[in-house]
């Protein structure tokens, strides 16, 4: 009994922290550019797909693929921003929101359609395992442990980048006040591109980790984007620890509900959490004053 609960807890934390990685990417994009990127989940899907193809065709282990997918998708994100987001950047707020929804929704539909056509619409996983470890009565899959380690490492790295480097500080400044940051001489255009690229790269890296544990299809993008968005509302925009904690809460609750009530209910959890949190703390669970 205890070990079942522990298994669920570990699994939930793991899945949640992978969600959090992508969610923080989206939060970065939203915080800096105010773009509601509906295509975000599709980048996770693409990252996972690349890893699964690299493993199936070339035998490349997923933790090596990470080093390709990360920089690769950083570039993809920057190009995406240059072609599709930059041209509308100067529109008034309301027009910008609508245009960004149309553009990212359109991109998402196109990406899913093209992916389904070129690799097939079926479920795809990865038969990659590492030997499990036994701690007391709890069996811990070492694949999951490595995954968790990678997520924590990436989060830590991201935290350091955001706090210590010039670009990271500029990004945080942009999230606080766009005009203020511009007045301080920050190149908004270049940093917006960087934020978008970084956000996309985080989602795609999350996808590489995701596919080692869970199956993917070309159509998981939009539901995933939705979960990400819930996490952002819960954790607060640009709040890295808050997003991580929210991700873990979501992952654990999903795992518990899925086990005790049935898998068909686990998907409703994200949303119930969201509504409860909105009623209780409308600015987010971990918001620090600024709404």
């Amino acid at each position, binding site marked *: 009994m205890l070990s079942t609960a522990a298994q669920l807890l570990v699994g939930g934390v793991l899945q949640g922290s992978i969600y959090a990685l992508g969610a923080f990417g989206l939060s970065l994009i939203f915080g800096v550019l105010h773009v509601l990127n509906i295509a975000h989940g599709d980048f996770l899907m693409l990252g996972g797909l690349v890893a699964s193809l690299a493993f199936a065709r070339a035998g490349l282990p997923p933790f090596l693929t990470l080093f390709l997918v990360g920089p690769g998708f950083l570039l993809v994100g920057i190009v995406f921003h240059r072609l599709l987001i930059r041209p509308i950047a100067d529109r008034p707020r309301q027009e910008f929101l609508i245009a960004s929804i149309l553009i990212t*929704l*359109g991109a998402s539909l*196109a990406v899913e*359609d093209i992916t389904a*056509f070129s690799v097939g619409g079926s479920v795809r996983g990865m038969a990659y395992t590492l030997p499990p470890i036994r701690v007391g009565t709890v069996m811990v899959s070492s694949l999951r442990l490595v995954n968790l380690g990678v997520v924590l490492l990436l989060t830590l790295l991201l935290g350091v980048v955001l706090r210590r480097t010039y670009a990271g500080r500029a990004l945080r400044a942009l999230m606080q006040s766009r005009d203020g940051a511009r007045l301080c001489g920050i190149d908004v255009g270049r940093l917006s591109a960087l934020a978008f690229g970084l956000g996309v790269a985080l989602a795609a890296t999350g996808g590489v980790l995701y596919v080692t544990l869970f199956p993917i299809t070309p159509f998981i993008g939009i539901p995933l984007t939705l979960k990400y*968005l*819930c996490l952002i509302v819960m954790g607060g925009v640009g709040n890295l620890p808050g997003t991580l904690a929210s991700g873990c809460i979501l992952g654990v609750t999903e795992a518990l509900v899925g086990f005790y009530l049935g898998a*068909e209910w686990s998907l409703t959890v994200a949303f119930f959490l*969201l509504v409860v949190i909105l009623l209780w703390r409308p600015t987010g669970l971990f918001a620090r004053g600024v709404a």
Partner: protein
Amino acid sequence: MRGLLFWAIPLVGLGVVPLVTSSYAVVFLLLLFVNLTLAESYGIVGGYLGYVNLGHASSFGLGAYAAGILVRGGLPFPVALGGAVVVPVLFWGAISYPFLRLRGAYFSVATFGLLTLLELLANNLSRLTGGSEGLSFPPGYRLVPAYYLTLGLAAASVGLSLSVARSRLGLALRSIREDEEAASAFGVRLFACKVRALLLSAAPAGAAGAVFAWYQAYITPGAVFGLEIALMPIAMAMLGGSGPVGPVVGALFLTVLEEVLWTRLAYFHLTVFGLFLALVGLAMPGGLTGLRWSRRILARLPGLGVAAGRGVVGG
């Protein structure tokens, strides 16, 4: 009066369609009217108020299921249709308080989540809804009466949108869209106005859901809460632009485009459709009716009142 006469001509024209053409054209127009009703009613919140309600289709689905459950319970369809209006209105009334605490993109996210939740609930509460196997109505051939009902609904929702646009409420909604704080400072009661807009937009969508379900005689959670029914009308309203005329133009354009793509292209219709949406977002900030030449045409149409200026057409 002249305006009314002008608009009566196409309405009568559409009225005789089932008498003179194939059922293909009738089905095509019926679906167009359903989408148009959704796009127009979406426009009250999405266009005038400027809150992008990605969960607008939840009214459609709730209406469809309410009607289905009531008809199966033995009630006649007109009563069920009434129920299909009441249920979504009550639903939005109940959730308006937490949801209207959100603004901008957050509101869009939460309402999008709402739709997903309803789809899951429709799947899981199988005693009530039949679950993923769907809910069937007593069989029957209802194309022609459903056609007239949807035509009426589409016309009514255009009328509703027009009257909101001309009312004090419409003015208040647009002032909230431009600047909530300023509107509030001028004495606009923000919450009351927003709730009214939400309820007004829920009612026609619920009725459209009921008629659609009645016509199809069979509904599944995916069909009435799914992404396609959720996003198409919104894309139509955004494509057309804000105002009572925008969604009509957008609905016509996208329905025809989709029909052409499905029949002409073997693959990649979703890709082309998606690229088209992205192109609209990139190139047309005010939607199709925001373009200069379309404004000029619209200004000549009678009966739209202030439509000529920025008033109704441009927002």
